[in-house]
């Protein structure tokens, strides 16, 4: 039972990480209709800048802020030079252009920081573990990620539901042309949303630094799962992104933890381990397929789509 609770926390933590990426991706896709494969590159930029600032200043807080800011800046630059030209093009053009950006960012990062991965230590005030349940210590840093992730989710909810900007975002997700026709400067709105998404991705990358490898290509692995999240949650919806992210995080973690054991009931241990591992890595995609059959537009889609 304790183990199950710990695994649930692990799933939650993985889920909020995914949410930080999915929130931006879903807004950009929902409002501008842009498939941004380079979203993972912004996550990578955040992680690398965070690692560098930690190395020079020793302050983790400053580094996380710098990582998010750098990703936002990179987002602003690619939005105003490249993405802006892609909003009215087809999805294939967007995929091609943003895939090119992935290659560009990977090589650029390799030229600046070199091919070897970087190391970010957990700051001392977040290291160690707390005894949430007797005999089961849980790393403080992972708890901190859960808290920060849920706080960001709350802030995003407030932004989208309670502010004027949020109203425009919701309206944009529902009907882009109508918002433009009503006299809203969509160029500014789109740029703002893109930068916001980029900053969240950069924040995710910065927070991931101490747990994951800060290396070239780190964004691609997590990007695939992020797309699964927004498809499961419903494109263009922040609530959907949160629900989808937590669902994918928990299902993936529990699947890895328990599928091999469950399969031992029906087959011998060796093949249970093999099949279980294979099945566990497919589980989130099976979840996605099931959700799409049941609700083709995702669990909590934005209105009007």
């Amino acid at each position, binding site marked *: 039972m304790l*183990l199950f609770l710990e695994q649930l926390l692990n799933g939650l933590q993985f889920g909020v990480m995914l949410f930080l990426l999915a929130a931006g991706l879903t807004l950009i896709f929902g409002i501008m209709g842009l498939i941004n494969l380079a979203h993972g590159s912004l996550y990578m930029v955040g992680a690398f800048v965070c690692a560098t600032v930690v190395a020079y200043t020793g302050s983790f807080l400053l580094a996380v802020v710098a990582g998010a800011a750098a990703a936002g800046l990179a987002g602003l630059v690619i939005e105003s030079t490249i993405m802006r030209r892609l909003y009215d093009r087809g999805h294939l053009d967007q995929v091609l252009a943003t895939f090119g950006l992935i290659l560009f960012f990977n090589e650029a990062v390799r030229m600046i920081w070199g091919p070897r991965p970087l*190391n970010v230590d957990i700051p001392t005030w977040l290291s160690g573990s707390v005894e949430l349940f007797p005999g089961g210590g849980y790393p403080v840093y992972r708890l901190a990620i859960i808290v920060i992730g849920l706080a960001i989710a709350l802030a995003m909810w407030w932004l989208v539901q309670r502010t004027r900007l949020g109203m425009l975002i919701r309206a944009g997700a529902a009907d882009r042309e109508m918002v433009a026709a009503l006299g809203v400067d969509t160029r500014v709105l789109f740029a703002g949303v893109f930068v916001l998404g980029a900053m969240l991705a950069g924040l995710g990358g910065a927070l991931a630094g101490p747990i994951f490898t800060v290396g*070239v290509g780190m964004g691609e692995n997590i990007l695939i799962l992020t797309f699964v999240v927004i498809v499961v949650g419903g494109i263009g919806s922040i609530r959907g992104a949160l629900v989808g992210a937590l669902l994918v995080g928990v299902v993936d973690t529990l699947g890895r933890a328990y599928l091999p054991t469950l399969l031992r009931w029906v087959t011998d241990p060796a093949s249970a381990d093999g099949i279980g*591992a294979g099945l566990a890595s497919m589980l989130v995609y099976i979840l996605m397929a099931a959700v799409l059959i049941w609700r083709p537009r995702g669990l909590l889609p934005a209105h009007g789509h």
Partner: protein
Amino acid sequence: MNNHKPFAAVLAALALAAAPVAGAEPVRIGMITTLSGGGSALGVDVRDGFMLAVGDDDTLGGVPVEVLIEDDARDTSRSREAAQRMIQREQVSIFTGTIWSNLALATVPRILAADGLFLSPNAGPAEFAGSDCHPGYFNVAWQNDNLHEAMGQYVNDEGYDNVYLVAPNYPAGRDALEGFKRYYQGDIAGELNTSLGQQDYASELATIRNADPEAVFFFLPGGMGVNFLRQYDQAGMRDSIPLYGPAFSFDEAILEAAGSAAEGAINGAQWSPDLDNAANREFVEAFQAKYDRRPSLYASQGYDTARLLASALAAVDGDISDMQALRAAVREADFESVRGDFRFNTNQHPIQDIHVRRVVPAEGGGHTNELVGMAFPEHRDAYVGDCAME
């Protein structure tokens, strides 16, 4: 049949034209390795180790050489095409550089079909050690299973009999666990097959801690290993459950990224920076002076590959027109390896000592490996029996 005659004549003429006159044309060496994208740290190290031996005067064993370096970006078709191009356009017949087994399996047969010589500085798939062994293929590093086997033996020797195993769910991962189990006699507390490229191991770590094993053996190459090591440390398991793995999980790039999380881990390797022999001392010092970083296992393999080739080129006096003679000279392995004693088995894979190392803090910051013992003296791979060569 007659139609083939002019073609054969043209080929023969070309071959004659391509045959270098000793001392006139430099010997061309094709180095196809991974220099960009994921895993490029390995290719860069192999290249730098090789080029250190080539030196600024571009010679190997006193013979002028020209090294053509090509990036395969860890892509099978790019690797194969680069080899094809070098064979046809540049008349290259000596190849090296390949890092990954899947790339070697796709590329090496082309080279061998063109009667070329291939010296593997890293990849050592079972096929080439056993049923598909070939007089033109030499492995200068190890057969893939060797370093895992060493850990199986050592964990046994240490008296552990309840070990947890972790490896990714792909061919090399399964081979690693097979290699470990070939020599390990005790109980297996559990086995986790993680997915390739997995970043988060929180779930696996909780499962392992719950199983309460005496030790953990893991093989997670590249970034996966860094993630695992750091999360293992963060979960507070480094002090309670000792970690064992192959040297691949503790190379210089990984140690740099993992920081103190890797400290104390035990790993099997055919080389260590503190191996006490003249060739190695010279290598470590020269590498550090030239590239301003610590040499890795891969760099030592690149260096040894170049020095092996140097010994063979010197023996045939730079004349590579007689491939038979060149292969025979390579087979002699008449060079000072940085590993100490080194010779080829009948399948042209190394017979060598496999050592045990521990990760320790290095002088001047960072971490490095130091020798703590030996797993196998004069180890041979398990596939030599399937090889028809004698």
